[in-house]
């Protein structure tokens, strides 16, 4: 039975130029390892393939039970020139939380 990341984790989106940052945090310490194994940079790149045209890098911050995804060329040239309705990509934390994992 697949579960949405939304049930296991919370997230915050940020922007730097055309780069989108997605910080993902497990609600419970016990779930962090599952996120670490399944929510890889490749998996996120696949999940957001229609948005992210560049590379996705993942940083692990175990002290915060966090994974930080840095997505390049993800904001339609960046907040100041984007045609998107949400040029900062602030809503995209919830796009990440639509991903599913196998518990």
């Amino acid at each position: 039975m697949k579960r949405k990341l939304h049930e296991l984790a919370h997230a915050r989106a940020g922007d730097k130029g055309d780069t989108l940052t997605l910080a993902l945090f497990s609600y419970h310490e016990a779930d962090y390892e599952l996120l670490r194994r399944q929510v890889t940079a490749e998996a996120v790149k696949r999940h957001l393939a229609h948005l992210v045209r560049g590379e996705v890098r993942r940083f692990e911050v175990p002290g915060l039970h966090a994974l930080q995804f840095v997505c390049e060329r993800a904001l339609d040239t960046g907040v100041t020139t984007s045609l998107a309705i949400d040029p900062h990509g602030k809503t995209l934390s919830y796009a990440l939380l639509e991903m599913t994992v196998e518990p």
Partner: protein
Amino acid sequence: MILASRGELHYLALECLAERTIALAQLRKLADPAAGYDPLLEARMRALLPLAVRHGFRIVTNMGAANPLAAGRRVIELSRELGLKIKVAALSGDDVLAQLEPGMRTIEARGAPLSEYGTLVSANAYFGAEEMLPALATGAQVVITGRVADPSLFVAPLAHEFGWRLDDWPRLGRATAIGHLLECAGQVTGGYFAEPGLKDVPNLAQLGFPWCDVDEEGNGTLGKVAGTGGAITLRTVKEQLLYEVTDPGGYITPDVVADFTSVRLKETAKDRVAVAGAGGRPRTATYKVSVGYRAGFVGEGEISYAGAKAVERARLAGEIVRERLRDDVADLRIDLIGMDSAHRTDFSHAAPYEVRLRVAARTATRELAERVGAEVESLWINGPAGGGGARRFAQERIGVVSLLLDRSRVRPRVTLLEEDRETQAA
């Protein structure tokens, strides 16, 4: 205001510059040499100056935007009106437009030279604590800057109070973590966080802003005034610590390269989180410079469809507009708000009852930008059945790119403003 009157503060920082703000301010300054600072400066200072004098805290702000000196002069005028006697220090010199050369490479993904962008309108180096310290040393009640790195607005007062050396990388790193947590104010106290059910935040409408009590090692405890709304929890602090951070182990500011991966957080009481243990390495040899340029125009139009076949009618409407603009507008985007506008796809695949068509396009001229909205508006009459509530927008776009500039090419200046004179402090 609650934080200013009841926070028992020593310093109040107001961070007011987004990426593009200073470019827009520069355009206002070109039209009027006495303008170019934050339009909210007057209202903010009118409210805060009496509190600052009464409670004895200092105000540190980047509300100077493109014209810190004019902002400083305005604050002196205001203080006279309010019957207060204060000094103001203005930090300028971050404007480096004259130092730019067309061949300089930007640090954006493609690394294109500046010559490939439109007409440049502004270029501002991100100053840090080092440039702000002479302003703080004047003892001025208000320190007004142009572009400074957001965390530096907090690092500088700490370095000033504790007398830190500017190569004390661990302390600067720890203070940078705290500055980064405070710089978006409400984003650490429950703003940009709440989700009913899973992530409830009490009384978000009366969101309290944060303070931090920092020790001389650069560690501190975040809190907010009792009775205000919001919440400070491990979760709100964790989310903000990684906000907009592209490398948690190497967060670059003018002051230091900070390491947030070693940060330790501890809830010490309700709405109190202790922050300790960030690391720091030597700063880089360059300033980051934010360059504003004229990026053409954007035109937008929106119209709603509801009920049976709403999605199909909206899609048809979008294709009609695309076809009608085909000869004049190449760079066009069609969204269905309620379906795929924010995430560019619909992960749930559920048909919405109503959708709103949005058409947006980049254009070379204002006239063409206006046409985009006009075509959407005309869908009322010349489009599919039942389209309503059309709105249109057109505006010039100022784009922002970044580059790195050697520190030696930039000259920071501090001007001390008093009621009857102005002197160069550094």
